[in-house]
């Protein structure tokens, strides 16, 4: 779950600051699935960056999984990040690690046992249909395959909050349907999920509460 109160965010230096979000207030409880809608430049990626602790709000109050982010120490933020999964538009796979090691990365940073890591990675890679590509390097994969690896890495540690930026972009309809079914299943298990998209057809096909942004402002918070 997360709560934002009167949050604003600007990027760039102090002289060239561009407002990306203005006075956003949201309250999303545990286990909820939300679409994040809006045209390009609406502030969807900025909002997801704040939720993934990749950016710090310029003003307002941000509380994620019960932690007041603006007041938290760096160590507490690092622990909080281990409970947040993120799927980025550009996948952010490490090109010199193979698929197995990319997906295992979050578990290794949590110092899990290698046997457990191996079991978890094989299970999730089977689910995304890439169990035969474990030794491949990211540049050897197609865009859709890279996206599935990025999704596997984001969900392998069953995060309490999952944010995804256009996660179905490079997927075919069948893969997209499987992915959204898994997201709904994760939400049922207690994960709060926010998925940004500007694909109206997929939203119509899989209806769910939505947050709509335009020009950095909250237009609607459908429930």
């Amino acid at each position, binding site marked *: 779950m997360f709560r934002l109160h009167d949050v604003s965010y600007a990027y760039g230096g102090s002289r060239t600051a561009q407002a990306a979000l203005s006075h956003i207030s949201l309250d999303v409880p545990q286990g909820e699935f939300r679409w994040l809608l809006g045209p390009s430049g609406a502030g969807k990626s900025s909002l997801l960056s704040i939720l993934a602790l990749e950016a710090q709000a310029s003003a307002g109050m941000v509380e994620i999984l019960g932690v007041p982010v603006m007041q938290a120490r760096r*160590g507490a933020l690092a622990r909080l990040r*281990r409970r947040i999964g993120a799927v980025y538009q550009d996948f952010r796979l*490490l090109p010199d690690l193979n698929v197995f090691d990319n997906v*295992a990365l979050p578990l*290794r*940073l*949590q110092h899990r046992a290698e046997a457990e890591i191996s079991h978890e990675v094989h299970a999730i890679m089977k689910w995304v249909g890439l169990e035969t590509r474990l030794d491949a390097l990211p540049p050897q994969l197609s865009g859709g395959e890279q996206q599935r690896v990025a999704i596997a890495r984001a969900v392998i540690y069953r995060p309490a909050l999952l944010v995804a930026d256009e996660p179905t972009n490079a997927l075919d309809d069948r893969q997209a349907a499987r992915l959204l079914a898994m997201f709904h299943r994760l939400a049922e298990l207690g994960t709060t999920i926010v998925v940004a998209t500007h694909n109206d057809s997929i939203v119509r096909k899989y209806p769910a509460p939505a947050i709509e942004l335009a020009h950095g402002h909250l237009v609607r918070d459908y429930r």
Partner: protein
Amino acid sequence: MARQRYHDGLALHQALPGRFLPFLVGAMTFLAALALAGGIAAHALSQRWTHGAGAVTTVQVPNPDDPAAANAGGASPAATRIHAVQDILATTPAITAAHRLTDAELRALLAPWIEQTGDGSLPLPAVIEVHIAPTRNPDNALLARLQASAPGTMVEHDSVWSDRLAALAGSLQACALLAVLIVMTVAVCVVMAATRAGLQTRRQAIALIHSLGATDGYISGRFSSRVGLLALGGGLCGGVLALPMLLAMSHLAAPFTATTDTLPTMGMEWRNPRMLLDLLPHALLWMLLALPPAAGLTGWITTQLTVRAWLRRLP
């Protein structure tokens, strides 16, 4: 298992290549060893000059066997000039020892000049070697008292010369210390530059594992372990390379710093490692042993601080 544990994407063997840094740290360690050796040698010479043979004052008493002056102020007037002088020296508190050179010692001392003149019957003064406590200088009153008992007595303070040499040795020590500090500063700068270059090379991987919950301590620990080991290796190489040069210098300096009965015998010690190491002053040996761990620790601390400062850029 260990190999798997470090598959965290940092790829430090790419970020911090294993040749450049050890080479530079090795060179710095080599220079630091030479500077330390210079400082320790200067200290040893200073000690010798201020406390050893260099601190001797000589008293010359012409016509030593003539009767002492009648107005000598001793408690029991001596019969001869030399006895009057010896009595005064024996009762002066600043003087720790006084030794009258024997006739043979005196002739040995003057042999180069006496042999040149070919005259062995020259009347020679009595010469007394006087050791004075390092912190106490006899005042002019002593010379006045000596001359009152034995007019014409001369006192030569060799300590003036040895004090100047000691001052020179002190400044050499300061230069050596300064050189070590400069070498350390350069080493710290080199480690900082290498670490920053490594951070820049792997910035995307660092940003990713940071976003996945890696702590600043984990990331800085990974970098500093690598740099610490590379610096330790470089320090070991630099120390080992400096050893033969220091041994050769110690061998050359031995006659000036050692007592005559401990002078090494040329050729013998090179076949015996124990004797070889005995050539080095103990202080230098310990410093040489301490240099590689110091290099490793310096690298580790510098990298910790550099990486933690860099990570502050990330939210």
